[in-house]
C-alpha cells in the first residue's frame, strides 16, 4: 500500500476543494464515529439524571405499580355537570395539550320537540355563553367527553405500526416513538377523541392521565371537577364507588351499537347524546 500517489497539498483557496486521501478519509471516519459514540453514551447517561431531577418533589414514582392488579373505568354523571370547563383547562395544563385541540371537552345539548342544538365553544374551555335557540327548549344539559378507552378498539385495529395499544390495566395509549402520524386511528375513532399533534405530528388523545393514576392520583379532570360529575375508579377493587355505580345503577355508553365496549360509563344518559 506504499505505492499510492501523494495528495496535492491543499492550497487553502476557497475555489479549490480539498482533496482527501484514503488515509485522511479513514482517520476522519474514525474520529467522527468515535465522537458520535462518545456523544450518544453521554446523552444516554445524562437522561436518567435529568429525569431524576424533575421527580424531586413528585409523588412516589410508579415503581411498585402492577398493571395487572387494576382495571380502570371512568364514570360521568351529566346531570351534575355545570359546564364550567375546569376539566378542560386542567387537562390542557396537565398534559400540555396544543391550543385548539382537546383530550377532553364538554358539549351542551339543548333539546325540544322541534329540534336539538349541540354546541361546544372552544371545547367548553372558557365555559359556556348564553344561548338563543330557534325552538322551544324543554331540556338542556352538558356532556363531558373524552377517549372511551374501549375494550374492542377501532383505533388499535387500524394502526399499521403497533403504536396504539391497550395496557393490561385497560388504558389505551399511543407510543409516540412508533407513531408515524398516518392518522388512520384519528379517522377510525367513532368518538372523535384523537388528533394529530401539530407539535409532534403524532397521534394524541386522553390517557386517563396515566402518569397520575399509576402514582395513585386521580386524572386531572376528575381532580378538579367541582360537582363530582366525573369519577374514576378501579373495577378490580372491592368497594370502589365507581364499580358499585356501574354494577347497580343505570349506566350507558356512547354509541353502543358500534360494539366497541367503552370503559367510560355515563349515568342516566339521554338518548339524544351521540
Amino acid at each position, binding site marked *: 500500500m506504499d505505492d499510492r500517489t501523494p495528495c496535492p497539498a491543499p492550497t487553502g483557496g476557497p475555489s479549490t476543494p480539498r482533496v482527501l486521501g484514503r488515509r485522511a478519509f479513514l482517520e476522519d471516519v474514525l474520529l467522527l464515529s468515535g465522537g458520535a459514540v462518545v456523544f450518544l453514551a453521554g446523552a444516554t447517561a445524562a437522561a436518567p439524571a435529568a429525569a431524576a*431531577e424533575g421527580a424531586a418533589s413528585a409523588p412516589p414514582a410508579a415503581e411498585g405499580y402492577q398493571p395487572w392488579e387494576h382495571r380502570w373505568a371512568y364514570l360521568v354523571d351529566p*346531570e351534575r355537570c*355545570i*359546564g364550567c*370547563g375546569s376539566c378542560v383547562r386542567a387537562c390542557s395544563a396537565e398534559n400540555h395539550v396544543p391550543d385548539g385541540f382537546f383530550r377532553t371537552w364538554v358539549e351542551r345539548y339543548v333539546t325540544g320537540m322541534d329540534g336539538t342544538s349541540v354546541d361546544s365553544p372552544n371545547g367548553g374551555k372558557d365555559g359556556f355563553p*348564553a344561548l338563543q335557540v330557534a325552538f322551544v327548549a324543554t331540556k338542556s344539559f352538558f356532556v363531558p367527553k373524552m377517549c372511551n378507552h374501549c375494550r374492542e378498539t377501532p383505533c388499535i385495529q387500524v394502526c399499521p405500526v403497533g403504536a396504539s395499544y391497550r395496557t393490561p390495566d385497560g388504558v389505551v395509549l399511543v407510543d409516540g416513538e412508533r407513531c408515524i402520524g398516518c392518522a388512520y386511528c384519528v379517522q377510525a375513532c367513532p368518538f372523535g377523541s384523537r388528533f394529530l399533534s401539530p407539535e409532534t405530528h403524532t397521534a394524541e388523545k386522553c390517557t386517563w392521565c396515566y402518569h397520575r393514576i399509576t402514582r395513585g*392520583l386521580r386524572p386531572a379532570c376528575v381532580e378538579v371537577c367541582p360537582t363530582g360529575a366525573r369519577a374514576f375508579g378501579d373495577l378490580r377493587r372491592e368497594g370502589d364507588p365507581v364499580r358499585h355505580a356501574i354494577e347497580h345503577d343505570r349506566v350507558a355508553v356512547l354509541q353502543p351499537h358500534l360494539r366497541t365496549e367503552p370503559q367510560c360509563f355515563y349515568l342516566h344518559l339521554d338518548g339524544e347524546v351521540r
Partner: protein
Amino acid sequence: MEHARHVFRAALVVLVLLAGVGITRGFLVPPTYGLHGPYRWANVAEQMSARTPAHRGPAACGTCHEDELRRRAAGAHRAVSCEICHGPLLAHVAADGRVTAPQVDRSPALCARCHRKVLGRPAAFPQVVLEEHVDGPLDAGACLACHDPHAPTP
C-alpha cells in the same frame, strides 16, 4: 459432487438472505416489542413517567395554606378544588422548589364560568343573571365585594 456444489451455493445464498433479514429485524424491532402484545412494552413505563403530575389537590395546598383550607372546608366551596381558580400547583411551586405567584383572578368572569345563568346548567345549581344581580359596573372585584370566594355565603 458437481451438482451438490450448486445446491450448496443456493443454500448459502438463502442463508445469507436469512441472516440479513434477521440482523435487519434485530435493528428495526425494539427489544421490548411483543412482550405483552403487539406493542413496545417499554412505552408503558415511559408513559408512567412522561411528566410530573401538575395538579396535586387541595390537601397539598393545605401544607402551606392551612387557614384558607380550613375556611374552604366549612363553606359552600368545600368541593371546589383550589386549582380551579389558582391554576395547577406545579405552576406555583416548581419541581425544584422555586415559588412563583399563583393565579389570582378577581374578575367576575371567573365566577361567571360557574354561576352565570345559562342554558344547560342543572336548575338546583346556584346561578345569577349578572346584569340583574349586580348594580353597577362589572369590573374586577365586583363579586368579591360581597362574597368571600373561599367560603361564599349566598
